[in-house]
Each structure stands twice: as C-alpha cells, then as structure tokens.
C-alpha cells in the first residue's frame, strides 16, 4: 500500500514537471533565452581575451575561475573528511610517535 502511494506520488510529480517543461522555451535554437549576450560575449571575445581556443576551458579557468577554485576545495575537504572518518592512528604508530618525541 505504502509503495503504491509513493509510486503514485512520484508519477504525479513527474507529470507536473513535464507539464512545466512543455511550457518552457525548450527548442534548442539560437533564440533560446539562455543563448543571450553572455554567450555571444564568450564566443566572440573569449579567444582574444584569454588566448584559449577551447571556450569551455576559457570560461572554467578564467571567467568563472573562482567556481573552479571552490570545487578543488571541495576535493580537499573530501580528503580531510574521509581520512577523519577512516584513518585511525593505530596504537603501534602512536607509540612509535611518542618514542620519537
């Protein structure tokens, strides 16, 4: 019973969202709202301003470089988090460390 209710809920959600999608400016053409002056700027001036012919790279590292810095920090945080969960200083190592001190 519970399963059926959840399924109905999800299908209803899907239908609602699809109705929303049919309202959207979805056609993948040049007059989509997302293809606006920002993109034209990137495509026209990207090569001259950054010197990179791959515009995706130009945007990643130059125009939106701060995002990428944040994303490397996510990786850094992930390493620290995972090792804080998994890496247990085993007793042997601890004793050895104390000996050194």
């Amino acid at each position, binding site marked *: 019973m519970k399963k059926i209710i959840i399924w109905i809920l999800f299908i209803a959600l899907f239908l*609602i*969202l699809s*109705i*929303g999608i049919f*309202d*959207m*400016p979805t056609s993948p053409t040049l007059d*989509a*709202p*997302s*293809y*606006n*002056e*920002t*993109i034209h*700027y*990137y495509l026209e001036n990207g090569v001259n301003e950054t010197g990179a012919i791959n515009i995706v790279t130009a945007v990643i590292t*130059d*125009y*939106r*470089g*701060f*995002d990428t810095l*944040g*994303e490397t*920090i*996510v990786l*850094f*945080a*992930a390493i*620290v*988090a995972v*090792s*804080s*969960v998994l890496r*247990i*200083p085993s007793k042997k190592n*601890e004793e050895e460390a104390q000996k050194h001190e």
Partner: protein
Amino acid sequence: MIEQLPIINLLLLLGTALIIPLFKKRPFQLSLTLCFLVLLTVLVSSVFLLIHVLEYGEFYYHFGNHENLIGIEFLIDAFSAFFTVFVAALVLVIYLYSWKDKTEGIENKEFGRYYILLFILLFSIFGILYSNDLFNTYVFIEILSITSCAIISIKRKKETYTAAFRYVMLNEIASMSYLLGVALIYMITGHLNLERVATSLQSIWPLYSTNIIIAIGFMTIGVGIKAAIFPFHIWLPDAHATAPSTSSAILSGIVVKIYILVLVKLLFRVFGMEIVEALHIKWIMLILGSAGMIMGSIFAIAQKDVKRMLGYSSVAQIGYIILGIGLFTEAGLQAAFFHIISHGIMKAALFLSVGVIIYYKHVQKLKDFEGIGYQMPISMTVFSFGALGMVGIPLTSGFISKFNLGIAVIDANLIFFLIIIILSGLLNVVYYFPIVISAFLKDNKEMQKIPHIEKVPNIMLIPILTLGVAIVVLGLFPNLIMDIIVSVVATLF
C-alpha cells in the same frame, strides 16, 4: 586596498586550512596560536568592512576584472558584512573554547583535521554571504555541507556515523534540488548573477510562470531542508545530539542560520516581492514557522537526552525566525535577524556549557542534572542564562527578539500568530525550567556536601562567560546591534 579585504579574508582562511597539515611535526601550540591570530585578523577586517560599508555604502568585487555579465561577482553590503562579523565573532569564541577542549571523542590526533575542517567551513560561510551568483553559492553550499557533516562524524562514536549519514543524504538531496532550480532559472533567464536574474525574472514572470513556480519550489525546498524548516527537520536532532559540543554549537548557532540567510537572499533579492506575493509564499512560511514553533517544543518536552532536547529546541527557534521572515515586513525581518543573532549566542552558550558538564560528569541525561548547580556553578549559571533567554525572560536577549516579533506580528494584523508565540514560549518554560530548578534549587543535603568539582581551565571558561555576558548585554542594550540591523534590513527592501 579596502576593496580587496573580502578576498583577503577568504584567502587567509583558506591558507590556514592548507598550512595546518604542515605543522604535524612542529609544536602543536604554535599552530593553535596561528589559527587564533588568523581568526582575530579576519574578525578585525570584517568589522572594518562593516564600518566602511555602513559609512560609504555597498561595493562590488569582480573576479578577474570581469563585469557581472560574464564573471563572478561578490556583493559586500551591510547584509553580508554584518553577518560575517557575527559569524567570525562567534567562531572565535567557540574556537577559544575548543583550544583546551580535548573532550568528547575528538581524539588528540584529530585536532589538526578538526581545525582544517573548521577553517574551510568558515571559508565557505564567508563565500556564501558575499557571493552574488547563484552557481557560486551552490559551490559554497556544497563545501559547507561536506564540512558540516565531517565535523559531526569526526567524533568516533557509534551513533555519529548514522546521524552523519542521514545528514549527508538529506544534504545531497537538497543540493541537487537547489541545482535543478538553478537550471530551471538559468534556462529562462540566461543569467546566474542575482541582480540580473531578478530583473529578467520581473519581465518574463507572466510568460513562464509555471517554470518559475517549479524553480522556486525546488530552490526553497533545497535550502529549507538544509535550514531544518519544520517538516524537513528530521536530520537535526540526531546530528546535533551526537556531534561534539563545539560542533553542535557551530551547527546550531551558525550553519543553519546561514541557510536561512540564503533563503532570505533568494526571496528578497532574486524572486522579488511581486512573485512572492503571487505565490502566497508568505502564508506557507507563516504556517510552517508556527508549526515548527509548536511541534519542536512538544518534541523537546519528550526528550531525555539534554543535547537532543536542545536540538529540538533549535527546530522551535528556527520556527520563530521563519515566522519573522514570513511576515515580509521590515519589522518582522528586523525581529528575525535579531533572533538569528541572539539565538546563535544563546545556543552556543547552552551547548558549550553542556559540553563542560558532559566532560567532567560524563552524563548526558536530564535526570542526572539534579544538583549540578552546586558542583559546577559557573557553567550551570551560563546554562541557566541561556535557558532563560530561550524562554524569553526579560533582561535577556531572547526577550527582546520575542518582544520585537510580537510587535511585528501585531503591526501586520496577524494576532493569531501572537497567540502561537506566547504558547510556544510557555512550552519552552515546560522543558527548560525543570532543568534549571533541579540543578539549583533541589534541596539535597548530599549535594551540598560534594565540593564543587569545576576545575575547568580558564581558556574554556572565558568563552562561556563571554557568551553569558553577551546574552545579558544584548538584553539590556539591544540597540547596540539593532541600529545596524535596521540598516541591514533597509538593504533588502
């Protein structure tokens, strides 16, 4: 030079996080002092920024000298500058407490990692507050969620793992729905900058209203899960109860509030009043807020564990904040912001003083708190101040925020919610007073025989006392920060 201060703040925090691992072989004290100095510098520079902003007005910071059409932008105005000062000050106090706090399951060797995580967490909070870009906010939110989970699971106890796991799952669902919302917004506006999105949303709102409604739904639910707004609060009590006390103080005092501030930014800066009114977001928030106030308090009464009780109390207090924001008036927002500050201070005081008690007595159940006031007078006094503030007794900062909220509700002609505020205050009395009473007033002769065992190092006591004093000072002179809050709120309208 002053234009560079925000990024210098961020880089200082990040640099400290990167440097700490190098200190492994060096004396531990050195790195602790370094961290302290960095935090102090950050606090001073944020205060400086706040003064500058209040005097000369807001300014923008453009990364790589690209304008906001193509690049990422920081907006430093009274809103972000004020809350960064609050966050930096509170973290500094909590940091001082954790200096000697080799307690509660954080092993000695873990402290390096704990501070790395703390600094990255602070970095991301500053980023969220400054950022004026939807996707940049998403990146910072992800950093914040991974670090805030990690400072829970750093305590190697059984329960922490399951609590942290649940927190991670909900966090990730929330992030994904936020990102889907950003995608929908980007699809129709083609911008990611908050101001540009806001202007273009105003013009296309009649065209793509279904789309915008769905986007708003996804984004607010995503942020709402992270902010533990009432029906989405299920992760909060577990996470707060099992985390180490310092982490609980940070999570409850700061992290949850940051997500609420993100919600405020979205509602006021991006969607704008027209859309908010058309969608009746006001009523949704008012109802959810008041439901949280009542239900959180009722759940809290049933708890036996003191930290779990504090967690449910947080749910109730978040309800107050949401209620204040949901009024969508200046008075309501002022009350909500004041409550963000005062609740942050009070919850930090409560969690830290409970931390001291747990450290020395190894008890966490409410029934073990009998007569503890004789044994540990200082921390229990601070606890009582926090508890009185939560209830809203005059002379504490909690009273001021509830008073302001009440006035805001009356101004908005919604008397019904005044009743709920009073009812919730009474429920607060039900679960906070018994602890205080049993701790101090239990006439137990055995208890008086036991000499007080409070041998807490000064470095731990000073932060607790600072927080206790801050509660009273804010209760007596609320205008110290109320004047700033008025100008902060003015930036949002």
